């Protein structure tokens, strides 16, 4: 059976010029993520896991190699085309939430929908639904500075999901949270995964990684191993990608 890969990278390389010296951050990453999978990427600081996530979301360009989303080559796309992909197919979560400070929770959540051309009425409907699902309806009219860290990350999750993206990329989403908030956010991510959401999460925390059904370990810009760590859905798999 041919796996339904929603994300696929082939021999992905990324180097940075740091004042004359070249830092090779990714050194040939082959990764395949099947539709509906929950994949955690772990590894020590500087191993390239965040860079990999940036490349998957089009926030940066690979030095070489290929990226395919739902079977389509996207590594050569321009910024405008990537922006369209991000507003429709990819949701992003950050360690420090990165909510827009002068917008209320409701406005933050609606923003990607409005950018994607959804009507204001539909954006409000989606927002209210997500606020209710995530239990943060009471924060709707508050600005990020007026809510707790856990609530901020839930708002960030709602914002990432408002366009119903096929892929949710999360970079250390619990890194700035206390343990109670971490549990809450993880429960929500699992719940979304349970509904078939593809999740790729970067973390340092083994407890967080344990929530994933696949854990990819990276060292020195390479994938060292892919371990089935948690309860896998029947149709999900995460493996080192197919040979280039």
């Amino acid at each position: 059976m041919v796996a339904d890969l929603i994300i696929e990278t082939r021999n992905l390389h990324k180097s940075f010029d740091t004042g004359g010296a070249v830092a090779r951050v990714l050194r040939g990453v082959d990764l395949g993520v099947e539709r509906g999978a929950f994949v955690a990427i772990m590894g020590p600081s500087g191993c390239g896991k965040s860079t990999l996530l940036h490349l998957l979301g089009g926030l940066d360009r690979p030095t070489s190699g290929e990226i395919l989303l739902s079977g389509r080559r996207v590594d050569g796309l321009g910024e405008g085309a990537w922006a369209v992909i991000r507003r429709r197919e990819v949701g992003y979560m950050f360690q420090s939430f990165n909510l827009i400070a002068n917008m209320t929770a409701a406005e933050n959540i609606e923003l990607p929908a409005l950018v994607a051309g959804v009507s204001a009425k539909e954006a409000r409907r989606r927002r209210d639904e997500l606020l209710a699902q995530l239990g943060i309806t009471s924060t709707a009219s508050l600005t990020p500075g007026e809510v707790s860290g856990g609530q901020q990350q839930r708002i960030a999750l709602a914002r990432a999901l408002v366009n119903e993206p096929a892929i949710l990329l999360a970079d250390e989403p619990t890194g700035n949270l206390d343990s109670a908030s971490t549990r809450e956010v993880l429960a929500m991510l699992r719940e979304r995964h349970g509904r078939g959401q593809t999740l790729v999460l970067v973390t340092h925390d083994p407890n967080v990684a344990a929530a994933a059904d696949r854990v990819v370990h990276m060292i020195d810009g390479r994938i060292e191993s892919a371990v089935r760590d948690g309860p896998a859905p029947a149709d999900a798999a995460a493996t080192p990608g197919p040979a280039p």
Partner: protein
Amino acid sequence: MIRAAVRKAMADARARRLQAFLLFLVISAAAATLMLALTVRSSASEPFERTVREMNSAHLWITSSNPDVDLNTLAALPGVRATSGPYPQLWAGYSISNSEKKQQLYLVGMDEQLPEVDHPAITDGRWLRASGEPEIVIDRGAALRMGVEAGDRVDLLVDERTVPLVVAGLAVPTGRAPVPVAEEGLAYVLRDTLQAIVPGGRVGSPQFYHERIGIQLTDDSAAPAFLAAAEPLLARDGVRLLDTRADIAADVEDANMFDVIFLGVFSIFALFAAGIIIANVMAGQILSQRRDIGLLKALGFTPLQVTLVFLAESLALALAASIAGVGAGLAIAPFFLNRTAELLGVTSAPVVELMPIAITCVAVLGVVALFTAVPAWNAGRGSAVRALARTGKGGARRSLIGALAARLRLPVVVVLGVKDLSSHPARAVATMLALTLGVITATFTLGIEATFGTAMRDPASIGGAPADLVVDRDRYDPDAAVSLLQSRPEIESYIVRTDVDAAYGEEDIDLHGLEGDLERGGWVFVAGRMIAAPGEVAIGQNMAADLGLDIGDRVSITLPESDTTLGLQVVGRYLELDENVMLVSSEMLPARYLPTDYYINTVQGTDNGAFRRELLRASGGNFDPEVMSETTAAFRRQLRGVILPLNGVLFAIAAVNLLSTLLLGIRESQRDYAVMKTLGLTPGQIAASVFAGGALLGVAAVIVGIPLGLAVTTVIFDGMSKAVDVGASVGTMPSAASLLLIVPGAIALAAVGSMLPARAAASIRPTDALRYE
């Protein structure tokens, strides 16, 4: 401490080169404008002073038409160092003509040898020689106006004759301001030539044959003693003090009056706009350096020392910018002084005086110090821990305008731009104010343009002559003049004017006797109406105010030359540029007074310039016609040369202000922009949101600026009307249609100011901006 402050300042300047450069430019522009205003003001008479030194000028001039008076006796009075003359002078306004143009001149008869004291300053050609054809040396300003050069031939129009003369040279006259500061110029011929022009002429003869003498005093302070001693002679019939050097200097300075007014107003605007930028940029810098401030405090700096660090930093920049601005102001000043210098045939060099430089530097440094010290002191007093913990609360404010924009269903990029601006409302308001100054300036400039438009269409509305052309009859026979005017199909209507020297009590009056269809004359009445019958008089508004005359008053006017007294009733007050003018029916005047001028309105579509030349030709050079719109157009060209560059300076300052504000905002919000990119905004959308913010400020500036501009324009017009003493405010407010042009202009200015910030925002890389994730 000082070393630490210097080191920090140097580090900041290195880190924010663009910002420091922009700040430097803006402060320099403000300093240059202020310096320019002060220099032009203090140097307006500088070219004249130099010419006065070259002439070895007299301090005052006295004339006599009394043959029994010996002006030479003045040389023996106290305070007199030397005298020049007496020389014969004809006060009859003879004209020279070169077929294109005509210029009235008073002739002075002099010797082949120029006197050592009080001699005309030759700027072109040479002085008069006795051999060869009769020669003339003409007032330089008059020659420039006519396009006459040394070596040209001109016709001197004397009564019924034409005397051909060779122009030996051009000169700046003594004892009289040059044309066009004075309307009629001086011209010099040899005494023998003068005698040939008016055979049998002598002091007191009917050709207004006077003698004049120039008195050079030991110094200016000797004038009162001299005048007291000369009093008995000055009291005699036909003797009068003609002019003083100080009065002529004041007249020449007045030629720059509008420049000084405009430069003064604009320099205040520019300084204010620069103050806003400094406040914006320094407050922004301090906000973005809260962490540094926390560090400084952690290192042991007191709030005062923190303030001093920032003050030292901004004052060092401001001092350098002030020096550059002062230099630029001095360098540009000659362009503004050129008009006078050109008239006097000298090069213009501004007077470098300590006071204007000191005022400029103190004003600029004071504004910079104020706008730096306040935010720095506030920041210095804050908690070091909080400052170290975060870079400030900037941007956390909820945006009500943003919410309103969203509610109005504006495009999402517009909403984002609005929200971003409104997260720093004080800064946005300050930037809007700088743009508002640009809008006020533009409104004022449109008002000036509208006023010129009105003046060219209808000169009487600003107190000018109520006609398309004013034709001086000069020496043309009155009957021949009327036949010529009646034969011309270009003329729709004309009014005949007869000027008479008259007196109202002690006050000298220019009495204008009018004949014709006065209703078509177009005089603008402030109160009452135009004269309709003999026995009525209309008076200039300025004169009415000065003499306390009003409608219904009865006045008694004497005509000294004909020993006549007219009893008149005031029926109207009208706008009048000239002082002490009264209008009466010509029927009131004794028959000995002949018509002097004709107010001509031409039929629509007439080329008035061509018609002027045609009248000059058809009258055999006897008429002296002037097209009012040509005179106004020349003045407009002169003022545009001042106002348009000043507009440019203020617009540039406004654009730089917007640019620096947006750049600051983008620097502070780069994470937000990066996040927006991760949410799917394209670079184009990010740039559009920055443009939207700039455009919003532009629109807000228009909404606030146009009413303010109209108010400022009214105030300035009132001031200018007072300065020219028309008697009422004569400015025309800009039309609604022209004001509408400011909207796209302001948005375009906002777009220019937003261009660089928009590019900067669009090129933010999320991976860099969010690096510490």
